[in-house]
């Protein structure tokens, strides 16, 4: 007994073509239905993230001009130029908050990172635009960054386990965490002197 006959209940190519067309129509209907519900991957607006981080009292943003020395350090972490003249950040007491972007495979991933006393207090994926690798937004991944610091060689001081199939997005998150930690140390060091 041939299982395709049991499943499809036809004999011969014309019947199979009808089956194929029916499935195509079904998929088309599915497409129409889901297209109506099209949405982007905005998990939290950056301003909402900042309000949450600073309990509704968001300090005025500060501007960090990217000097030649700072640019060298940024390039060493990111493997490329950020393409901006300065970065905005928000600071209160020992905490600094950064809204940073890095491309996973083809699209920028907008990420909010809070650094407190030289350690990552919080990392959250705010806007994800790639077609794959969205798993990085889940707490099971981002929680790994909690309390991670920076080693002297600007590598993270703890291993971050990746997600299979989301390697490029994971790499982007590691880079942004390193960048936020380095920038936090930079602004504090230059404020003291």
């Amino acid at each position, binding site marked *: 007994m*041939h*299982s*395709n*006959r049991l*499943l*499809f209940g036809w004999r011969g*190519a014309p019947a*199979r*073509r009808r*089956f*194929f067309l029916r*499935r*195509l129509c079904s*998929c088309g209907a*599915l*497409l129409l239905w*889901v*297209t109506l*519900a*099209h*949405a*982007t*991957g905005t998990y939290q607006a950056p301003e909402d993230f900042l309000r949450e981080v600073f309990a509704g009292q968001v300090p005025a943003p500060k501007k960090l001009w990217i000097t030649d020395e700072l640019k060298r350090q940024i390039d060493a972490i990111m493997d490329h130029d950020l*393409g*901006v*003249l*300065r970065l905005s950040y928000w600071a209160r007491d020992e905490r600094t908050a950064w809204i940073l972007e890095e491309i996973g*495979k*083809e*699209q920028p991933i907008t990420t909010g990172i809070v650094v407190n006393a030289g350690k990552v207090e919080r990392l959250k994926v705010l806007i994800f*635009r790639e*077609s794959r690798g*969205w*798993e990085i937004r*889940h*707490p*099971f*991944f981002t929680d*790994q960054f909690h309390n991670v610091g920076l080693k002297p060689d600007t590598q993270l001081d703890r*291993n*971050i*386990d*990746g*997600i*299979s*199939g*989301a*390697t*490029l997005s994971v*790499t982007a998150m590691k880079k942004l965490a390193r960048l936020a930690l380095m920038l936090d140390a930079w602004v504090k060091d230059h404020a003291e002197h």
Partner: protein
Amino acid sequence: MKNVLLVGSGRAALLFAALAVRSGGSHAAEVPTAEQMWAIIQQQQKTIEELKAKLETTEGTVQATRKEVAETGKRVEETDQKVEATVEKVEEAAAKPPAASWVERTHVGGYGELHYNNWENDEAKTEKDEVDFHRFVLYLAHDFNDWIHFYSEIEIEHALVGDDDSGAFNSGQNNKPGEVELEQAYLELDIHENQSLRAGLQLLPVGILNETHEPNTFYGVERNLVETNIIPSTWWEAGLGVHGELLPSAFPGLSYNLLLHSGLQVATTGANAFRVRQGRQKVAEAPAADPAFTGQLKYTGIPGVEVGFTGQYQSDVTSSTLADDNISATLFEGHLIATKGPFGLRALAARWDLDDGPAATGPATGPSDGRDVQWGWYVEPSFRFDAPALLPGEAGVFARYSEHDNNAGDAASVDAQISRWDVGLNYWPHPDVVFKFDYQNEESDIASGNNDGFNLGLGYAFF
């Protein structure tokens, strides 16, 4: 007068003293005369006038300075505003390239791998001492907008594609070894949050390597035998499917992939009859009357862990080659990837079940008997670490044991199972660049013998 005297300057005091001296030391206490007093007053008045003039001049200077400071401050503020506006415009321009620029929405990437094989086959008394640029791949992708994307991948295999020695193309005689293949060309529509519809020529969601096979992502120079002969990687078909997250709130990390697609067309006679690898049509004027369906469930909800299951149904793996019969088939595959710190583990098992078919030509009892069942599995532990001193990057060692059998049916007249050990080393000077070495040792009773030896390779990928 008293007031005038009080405000007298030092110069007036000196004059007074001089007059006193001139009038004689013995008369120093005498009161000055009226003329003397008048002279003193005149001098003091003159001094006062001079001081007033100086004060007025100073006050004027101060006023002018204040005005200049205020104007300078205003200019600084205006300059700040101009700098702010300029920087904002520059940053906006950098962040938002012109919408009409299709270049900004087009992405290029690729990968490649060069292999050196040095094998010996004791049974067949043959050697392989060969260098081959096995794969040179270019990706081209384009974003039509923020939810409609195009992806493509074109590959040159074995470096050279061309006519045979007589100038005839694909004559079957001394053809050049290479192929040019379109491995991906599909449209992807992000139809909902983390839900996408995909239509076109695409890689099938099965196994570990079929969708992710850039050389820097796996151990070993050559791909493993199970995902070559049982899962015929690289395997692509034309189809329409949907993939995305499944119940993200309840099961974060659970995803699905459903695809209706074109099927295989295996040979029904000859040495490769009913071998699935040789049944790939590669969407090249391929018969499409016998569709197939693939579904995959994957769980990546624990960092470093992936568990995947794939099922596939082929309505007729011969694509209607047999006039009186259809040979349907099912493929089941499961795999595990686990990475914790430097430790890694990959394991995979896959099995095909083909309908028996007619006795004269079917996979169970025909000329290639036993191909109604084909299976394989492997397990691959690994350890990755920082490269030794003076070397940048990372290195990793691995061992892999695999078994597979393309003639595993009950009616098989030969034992075609191949067991193989692979051990080796990867060195990544950069995460996207790899150098590889491995040693392979096969065991089997097949007539073509076992290939034992070592391989060297290099690979790269960029996006």
